[in-house]
């Protein structure tokens, strides 16, 4: 391309300035002001009160991300070793759930986990509760699953697992087979090949998978509300409450959103430096 075509990017640069940068500036302005728009830092000094919510959200999101990684990596690895036709079908099967709205899937999960839901009915039909009550002398009618932190983590894993599998898979599939053969020829056993070659090379995929699971998990509000019952708020709930929920205060809400954003950005930055600035793996 001899003559410079960079002006083609101008419309989008303007667009970004308007709809990406300006809105974030609005959040910053709101977070440093009171209801009558005079300067204040109160919104941030109050943040200490919400430390519990911050830790809870980060804890659950980290657990969910780890589970996704532990479940997703072997799956992506196993998929990559299958034949081409098989991979094609498996890919399709992973993408497909995304086309059923996640709220609906979560809602269906809810009907599975309810006290009177499908899982508990199944347990009682196979006589699990009778068995437990007879042997242990307890009086259990159902397992309480809905409204617990476990249910929230399950919901996150269920919803975001595909986001972990896809980038890892797309990195593993591109690995140079000759590298693996070379490693084997040089005497590495399969564990060694995995540890020394495959895993380090799939790190970019892992990093982008972790990002794509962690960020939506830490900020979710629909999942925690449906599966967690909303008793123990998460960051997403807290922010939503201040804007469209029952405790209107967009200034405090902006401050919380800003703090969350900064923590997430710092986490990602640190993590990406672990990956030694690898080029970001494309999701699909």
């Amino acid at each position, binding site marked *: 391309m001899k003559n*410079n075509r960079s002006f083609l990017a101008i*419309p989008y640069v303007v667009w970004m300035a308007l709809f990406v940068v300006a809105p974030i500036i609005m959040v910053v302005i709101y977070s440093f002001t009171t209801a009558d728009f005079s300067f204040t830092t109160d919104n941030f000094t109050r943040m200490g009160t919400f430390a519990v919510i911050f830790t809870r959200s980060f804890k659950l999101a980290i657990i969910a991300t780890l589970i996704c990684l532990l479940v997703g990596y072997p799956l992506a690895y196993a998929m990559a070793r299958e034949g081409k036709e098989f991979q094609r079908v498996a890919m399709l099967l992973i993408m497909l*759930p995304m086309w059923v709205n996640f*709220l609906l*899937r979560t809602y269906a999960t809810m009907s599975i986990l309810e006290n009177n839901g499908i899982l508990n009915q199944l347990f009682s039909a196979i006589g699990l509760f009778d068995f437990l009550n007879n042997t242990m002398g307890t009086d259990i009618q159902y397992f309480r699953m809905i409204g617990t932190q476990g249910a929230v983590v399950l919901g996150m894993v269920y919803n975001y697992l*595909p986001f972990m599998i896809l980038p890892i898979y797309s990195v593993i599939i591109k690995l140079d087979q000759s590298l693996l053969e070379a490693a084997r020829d040089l005497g590495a056993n399969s564990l060694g090949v995995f540890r020394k070659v495959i895993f380090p090379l799939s790190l970019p995929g892992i990093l982008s998978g972790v990002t794509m699971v962690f960020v939506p998990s830490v900020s979710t509000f629909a999942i925690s509300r449906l599966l967690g019952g909303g008793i123990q708020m998460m960051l997403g709930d807290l922010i939503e409450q201040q804007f469209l929920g029952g405790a209107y205060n967009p200034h405090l809400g902006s401050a919380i959103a800003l703090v969350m954003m900064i923590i997430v950005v710092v986490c990602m930055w640190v993590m990406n430096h672990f990956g030694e600035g690898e080029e970001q793996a494309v999701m699909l």
Partner: protein
Amino acid sequence: MSTNRKNRVGSRLYMALVFFFLYAPILLLIVFSFNAGKSGVVWQGFSLQWYAELFQDRLIIQSVYTTLLVSVLATAIATVVGTFTAIGFFSMRRRWRAPLLTVNNIPMMNADIVTGVAMCLFFVAVFGGWNYLASNYAFTVNLFGAIYRITLPKLYLGFGTLLIAHVTFNIPYVILSVSPKLRQMDSNLVDAARDLGCTWLQAFGKVILPEIMPGIISGALIAFTMSVDDFVISYFTAGSSTSTLAMTIYGMTKKGVTPEINAISTILFVVVLFLLIVVNVRESRAEKAAAKRQLS
């Protein structure tokens, strides 16, 4: 060899297990869309009544229409803008490109709720100022002897803002999937075309576009999927009178989702399944044909 086979059985079993976990709720949803009763837990016999009632339900039909319209429009706009921007970024100096790409990554890296809240605040502030102007000032124009008073329209959150939001979070995905194809492209090709007398536009249509087409298609596909699946950003930017399917469902999860929603989801699911199968079969046939050609 035998350990290998055993491994394969094990790994397939594992995959089946994970897929079962992923599909259990969806299967449940599909099964209960054929339930005669309203319950999502108790089976009361087979019936197609929810499919019949679905087409009477204005709210659901309207929100499906809104969802599809906003997704198609946003994908179309994002694909065109994203492709040209990717070319623009590609021919830019690194000094300029790096910071712009960082900003470009913001909507992707940011939590949806932050993007949604930020856009909501921005639109409301801009519209607030605009509406103040509109209600306090009116132009008078003298046209052909008659005097007209022009009052500016008031702006509210609605389909327009929803579309802007969707375009904004879609473009980065398009750029991200077009850029690698541009890098892989042999730049001599374009030069050759120009030397042979093509204008840049002709070179674009004949050389660049075919080269980066796979990137454009996959970018458009991701964008469309993201648009359809989005709930949080729409929730904050659509205002009170526009509702996507996801927002309608969210409203319903509180009162109890009607099985009509299961029915519409089943329909969408089957349509997408069908489309994906068709595309895949065609692709794999094309690949096999190409492989055969190479052999002979």
